[in-house]
């Protein structure tokens, strides 16, 4: 395979290069996902636009902002995020998601932006011999095949799950995403960033040609709020989540005052567990049944023939997360 490598020195230059060749150019940072896609033939870009040659500060580093928020540049590595003390102190769900992701090698190379924009792991999508809907083929192979890793809600012709651990944690933490294009910047809540196959079979987010995800901002942490990220997997390292849960809960005077719960591995996008949140909000901590909170996590699940196990897994993992957080908030 051959491709052209561009090394722009400014964001404007990079965005312009991407906008010039919307079907041909792709941005590359750590390359942990894109290079394997190229090797497998899943992706065949003619031009790679390297981002690490850009000095623009917005892309780099992890910084406190004046209003108490934390801004993470898209080129921060997963290892940077995992090791950052401020994140560990105030947004531990994100810290845990980063620390438990993939392998040390991937964490050292992989970036925040790349992690959020990585493509699905569905093996039919990745396999050179099963050209599926997402690659312009005429069918989803998973519905007749092996769907154990796929979604239990939100599937529509395609049944991927979003593979990012980070995205789940950021959803529960209420992060916003900064998007840069030749036209300027826009900021969206992370929940609005990801899109399912019902919106567009060929993509998993709202980025338009020429746009780059440049930063993520975490809102000022609430003093009373605790968070957690739990991940179920088949082995301890180098594994994507079967199901994961990120939860942030706060209680004041013995009553749950904020509850934000997101699940990974159950839907084509990070899934907001609205049922659990509604169950928790306004309830006296003493009256919370973590089992009931967990049972409400996924509304109306529709598993494939071989992934019904994700229904109890999501409920149990949410149950555990709530138990741990409530025990911590009681201390």
């Amino acid at each position, binding site marked *: 395979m051959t491709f052209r490598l561009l090394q722009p020195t400014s964001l404007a230059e990079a965005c312009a290069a991407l906008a010039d060749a919307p079907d041909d150019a792709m941005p590359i940072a750590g390359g942990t996902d894109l290079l394997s896609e190229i090797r497998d033939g899943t992706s065949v870009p003619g031009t790679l636009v390297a981002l690490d040659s850009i000095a623009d500060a917005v892309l780099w580093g992890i910084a406190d902002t004046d209003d108490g928020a934390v801004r993470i540049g898209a080129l921060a590595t997963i290892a940077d995020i995992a090791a950052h003390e401020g994140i560990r102190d105030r947004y531990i769900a994100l810290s845990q998601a980063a620390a438990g992701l993939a392998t040390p090698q991937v964490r050292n190379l992989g970036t925040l932006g790349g992690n959020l924009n990585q493509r699905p792991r569905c*093996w*039919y999508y990745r*396999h050179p*011999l*099963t050209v599926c809907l997402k690659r312009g083929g005429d069918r989803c*192979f998973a519905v*007749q*095949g*092996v769907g*154990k890793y796929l979604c239990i809600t939100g599937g529509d012709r395609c049944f991927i799950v979003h593979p990012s651990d980070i995205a789940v944690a950021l959803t529960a933490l209420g992060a916003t995403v900064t998007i840069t294009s030749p036209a300027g910047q826009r900021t969206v809540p992370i929940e609005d960033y990801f899109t399912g196959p019902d919106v567009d079979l060929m993509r998993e987010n709202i980025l338009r040609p020429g746009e780059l995800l440049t930063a993520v901002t975490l809102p000022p942490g609430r003093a009373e709020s605790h968070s957690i990220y739990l991940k*179920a*997997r*088949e*082995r*301890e*390292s*180098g*594994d994507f989540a*079967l*199901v994961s849960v990120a939860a942030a809960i706060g209680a004041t005077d013995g009553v749950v005052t904020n509850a934000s719960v997101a699940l990974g591995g159950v839907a084509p996008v990070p899934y907001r567990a609205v049922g659990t949140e509604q169950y928790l909000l306004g309830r006296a901590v003493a009256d919370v049944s973590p089992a009931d909170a967990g049972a409400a996590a996924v509304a109306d699940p529709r598993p494939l023939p*071989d*992934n*019904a*196990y*994700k229904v*109890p*897994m999501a409920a*149990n*993992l949410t*149950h*555990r997360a709530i138990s741990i957080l409530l025990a911590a908030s009681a201390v």
Partner: protein
Amino acid sequence: MATIPTTRLSIVGRNAPRRELPDKLSGAAQYSADIDLPGLLHGVIVRSPHPHANVLGVDASEALALPGVRAAVTPADAPSVWLAPDMPVLDTRVRFAGDEVAAVAADDLDTARRAAALVRVEYEPLPFVTDPVAALETGAPAIHPQGNLAIPEPLALQRGDIDAGFDAADIILEERYHLPTHSATPLEPRAALASWEGDRLTVWKSTRGVHVDRDVLASVFGLDTGRVRVIGPNMGGGYGNKDESRMAVLAAMLSRRAGRPVRIEYSREEEFVAGRTRHGGRIDLRIGVTRDGDITAIHGDAILDSGAYQATAPRVARRAGQGMLYLYRCPNVRFDARPATTNKPVSGSYRALGAPQGHFALETLMDRAADAVGMDPLAFRLRNHVPLEGQAGPRLTPPDEIVDGQPVEGGIPFSSNGLEECLRRGAAEFGWDEPFERSDSTDPFIRRGRGMSMMIYRGGVGDESAAALSIDTEGKVRLITGVMDVGEGAVTVLCQIAAEAVSVGYDDVLPHFADTEDTPNAPITAGSTATFSTGTAVMQAAERLRASMLAVAAERLDASTGELTIADGAVFVCDGPGRRISYAELARAVEPEQLSAEATVTPGSPDYIVNSFGAHFCEVEVDTATGRVRINRYVAAHDSGRIINPRTALNQVEGAISQMLGFALSEELITDEPTGVTLNGSYLEHKSPTIQDFPSITTIFADVVDPVGPMGAKGLGEVPSVGVAPSIANALYDAVGVRFTRLPITPDRVLDALRNRAKGR
């Protein structure tokens, strides 16, 4: 004294450092893919995208037109020679998605890959079958002309009368077990480099037996074996698995055509898809017991998934049954097996072949049998394990014939049998009888359980083996054998045996292995036989060498051989202080051939079964929230006779257990049934356990010195892999009350089982 002393050992039984370690640590060690030759070309194999198809035509002209492409070979170029009973060099029929169709060679790998993609193959897709049970049904797509049974006749082995045995039973237990296909995942993908000089062919290959490869290559190219040289460089993980023969043949065909050396190295995905997998399949097992806990009958019936070709299916099928036939004292046993070809990646040899599959069924159903008669699993096994005297019944092997390592008949004792010691010492180390807390005080989802298994395996009796020893004028001992060190440490262990047997220091033994040019014919390194069988040859060669040394020394020292003793690199007159001659002096005094000896042996014993044994104990922790199983603690007790090198032996035990955690809990090479393609041929998706998943393992070696084995040793390498899955499954039952009958026991299966159990109540 020509007899080799086997007490007061100086190097056997010690942690002699691995011979190749300095080179491996420094990076100087060369593996097959590291070897470079002037003008080297890179070969790439063109593989079928279809699970089953006729190849109507192969057109390599476009590939050959690409600059830098030097050769292509297609089925039309292939000599009509069979590499195996059902595998030609290249065929106009492909039998799995990944089967070899053609090959190209180019100046560099990228060009070769591009060229491979340009080879135009016209396929006529055929109906295909991926399930071995369906493959044996009438009307299934015929994969080979001889049908889908991968052996000429179904295997049927019997001792006693199972009908009578089941009639005598108070309780009959039966179960159907499902086994996965999984990959050995060697870190080193297969590689072969072929180079011609005139009509002489040299091949470097990642292999388990250089002489077997030489014979295949000689037959394909119609050469005397003397014109083919096969060399086995360092190997990055063998597990008995590197037994395919096509890749070296294709490299040699390309090399001959291009007139330049050609290397083929598998990609990681090729290693998964076109390597060799463990046979999956299903086993139906019935066991009859009396209320007192005696076993009256055992009947196993296996259908194994051989994949697209037979490969080693006969041996795998045979080995799957040995536990059922012999691990328990029982007069009435039967084992039936039918390996079936399917349109899937080729199954072959992988650490202990079928034994882990057979023992999974046997040892989990035996736990149920113990439960059914109200006995503790350990007590049940202590009562029923096969004793030193072997099984009841008439011996059928003629009296002077070597006893097979996998007998069916009774009437033959074992040379040694440390099974009871393994059970007792393993249980004591584990604390089997101590109180145990199954729940967790901090997390109600956590459940713990304990389980055990025992195992029986061939003790190392292999095919005819040979070794040569000689003393050089420096007083060094040269050890020459054709056997291949597949990464397990055969060179080290055989050097230790030679050093001990010839009474020189370990560092004074200079090994030369695995080169058909100048090493004697050797069997494949398989079946845990290298230490025992080649070790026996080393011992016999040493006896001869010692006799020669005494004869030469007697003359020089003016003494009778009876007055002489051999120690520490010299020959002494027993009562004459100062009357000694060193090996170096001996060697300088005579022609070299006078101080060299060879031995070719048929290993084994006409009087005894030589078998190795073990007992495993483990504690598991199940997270019932996520279905995840972790092993908290593992104790492995093994009888492999005297341990030649405790450290390499420990590596084998710990390596086997760690490797088979994947078989038990996470690994499966998955073929998509609708399309026939392999879905997860990668380290990411074929989920081998990581270092973080490995438990702490305590290893015990029984205090057994085998009377037949060289220096008292028996085979070890595969044995610890046999009992891992059943000990874990039994512990899972103890933890959550579910009998798992399908491997691997992945989180989804655990959660599904817990949900089904909850529904059943």
